[in-house]
């Protein structure tokens, strides 16, 4: 679809705002609707739009396969790490009260970190799944599974 100039210009114009909106949903989830999950999907949608217009290879130049795989793990580890930090600081697993001096402060730190972990994992997952699907060529599929 790279040769369609309208698609190319409009998507290039929209993608920064999609990513910005994802970050807004991520960090503003405590106060308005949204949170890590929604932010992750919106963030991934920006990359998917780019991949649909400019091809999966172009996205993989910005975000190599190894990077999304590492991010996938980092998100889960961040979430679990916040839980383990609660244990190390003398509370229960996923007990945010001990993370800061005040109770609500600790809850706030914990929730922001946990939501960030969710966002990273979701964004990396959706990008990974899309790129693995879209990166396969139909010939390759037929080669593996035979002509349907």
């Amino acid at each position, binding site marked *: 679809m790279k040769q369609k100039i309208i698609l190319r210009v409009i998507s290039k114009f929209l993608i920064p705002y999609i990513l910005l909106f994802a970050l807004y949903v991520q960090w503003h989830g405590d106060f308005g*609707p949204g*949170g890590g999950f929604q932010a992750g999907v919106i963030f991934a949608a920006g990359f998917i739009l780019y991949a649909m217009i400019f091809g999966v290879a172009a996205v993989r130049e910005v975000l190599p396969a190894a990077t999304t795989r590492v991010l*996938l*793990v980092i998100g889960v580890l961040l*979430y679990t790490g916040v839980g383990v930090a609660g244990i190390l600081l003398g509370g229960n697993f996923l007990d945010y009260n001990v993370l800061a001096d005040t109770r609500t402060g600790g809850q706030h730190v914990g929730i922001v970190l946990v*939501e960030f972990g969710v966002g990273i994992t979701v964004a990396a997952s959706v990008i*990974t799944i899309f790129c693995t699907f879209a990166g396969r060529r139909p010939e390759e*599929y037929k080669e593996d599974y035979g002509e349907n």
Partner: protein
Amino acid sequence: MAITAIAIARIHDLFAVVMLTGIFSLLGAAAYVVMDAVDVAFTEAAVGAGASTVLMLGTLALTTSEERPASAKNVIGAFIVVVITGGVLIYGTLDMPMYGDPMAPIHHHVANHYLGESSTEVGLPNVVTSVLASYRGYDTLGETFVIFTAAAGVLAILGRSRLPRRHHNDEDGEAGTASSPETSKDPST
């Protein structure tokens, strides 16, 4: 939504079906907004109407966009099963409290505690976030692991194509599905 569902079941062009499932998700998101569940609507619009539609389009690009004609054997048996299942489901909903009933048990278990104490215990204005990330932190952790597992599964099944592929003029080219990275990187084979 019912019209969209019937259309999805009747249409054989899978491209139109994928578009209709996206519309179905968008209508669902609108229904959630009407019910004041903005967070759920947000998720439904992003995941249901956005990401899964794109994934299904990607699958269509790999396979075919025509539905294979289904063999019309035992239609009456299938119809009876569907009617009985639907009847049992409707019978089950008869015992449920009316929508918005303030005396429903779900509003008296932990919801009062969450709504009343959240501002002092967690201190966030959005109660949905504090329930999701703090009170129900274990559940959200499990969900994150589910998503992680989904991506890992897709990579395990389809991600193989990024490994160096064995050449087809090998004498055992038919055994290509069992090619491991070690054998394909080995220069002697």
